[in-house]
């Protein structure tokens, strides 16, 4: 199993997940995702994965598992779909 150590965490990607716990941030994100993400110095790959709802690509990056789980809950991604993406990402590593 992959244990995400802080050395490989994508700080700003995880910061997006963390900040999105606030209802106001969720509303802003839903209204204009690109504008919301423009506040963060995200790596291009992370920004593209967020914009495309690409959970496989997100899971391949340095995500804390609890934070990507929170993000999936915020986006109301069905559990089966979320777990399938995690497995696909792990399988491609």
């Amino acid at each position: 199993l992959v244990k995400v150590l802080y050395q490989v965490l994508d700080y700003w990607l995880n910061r997006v997940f963390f900040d999105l716990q606030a209802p106001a941030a969720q509303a802003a994100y839903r209204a204009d995702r690109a504008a919301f993400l423009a506040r963060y110095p995200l790596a291009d790959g992370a920004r593209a994965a967020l914009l495309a709802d690409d959970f496989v690509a997100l899971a391949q990056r340095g995500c804390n598992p609890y934070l990507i789980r929170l993000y999936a809950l915020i986006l109301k991604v069905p559990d089966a779909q979320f777990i399938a993406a995690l497995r696909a990402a792990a399988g491609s590593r």
Partner: protein
Amino acid sequence: VARLVGVFAASHMPPMVNAPDAAGPQVRAEAFAAYASLGERLRACAAEALVLVGPDHFQNFFVDNLPGILVGVGESHEGPAEPWMKGAPERFVGHPALGAHLLDSLYGAGFEPAFSLHLRLDHGYALPLRFGGIGEAPPIVPVVINAVQPPFPRVARCYALGAAIADAVRTFPGGERVAVLASDGLSHSIGEPDMGRIDTEFDAGFLRHMGESEPQALLNFAERNIHAAGNGAQEMRNWVVAHGAAGGTGFEKLYYRAVPEWFTGLCLATWNLEERTNS
């Protein structure tokens, strides 16, 4: 001085709130009844203060400032903000005097926990109280153990922390009745590819060691195996804290069932405290 009148441990699982029907009716009935039974025991010990050992699921802390161990010393604590926790208390009453004594005592015992005057207690704290039917909890001193981002406090330190918490209770001026409640796992995996897997072998081994009153064997087993039991199993450190608070003996499993539909090995336990622990 205060007395340690009860030590308890309980799993916490969001699906029991946001997707209870994922499990069948018999599992639901059993699980909810087991929580109610734990709650009765907790109420029966008439605690006037509760040291609640739990995790922080990124409600308070992020990787820009993430304490390994933290004591909540505030007069009150916010309730859960997680959207699926509707109906949870908006705030919990704190116990600043016991919190301050605990914090200072831990420094004297070789621990340097962080502290907080204002915490948000998430589902990890609220769910065992809710399912235990604890409508109005006694004043709470939360002890937060990092279980969400490595590195984690070593299992042996968690055991020693529990002993130090019990010592602090027994030197707290006044005659209050204090209980300890640990909240977590057992084996589960969250946001990882094996989400839904429950390491029943780990759970069985952990519970067996808890019951054998040989703390060193338990600590060796847990430190060696905890990482393979799912990332959520890191929260088992909280049970080890409770075990240390109880003096490493008297563990009694009240209920265990692996519930993959809720992603977790569900377990509830208490410790039978010997009189000597209060003398």
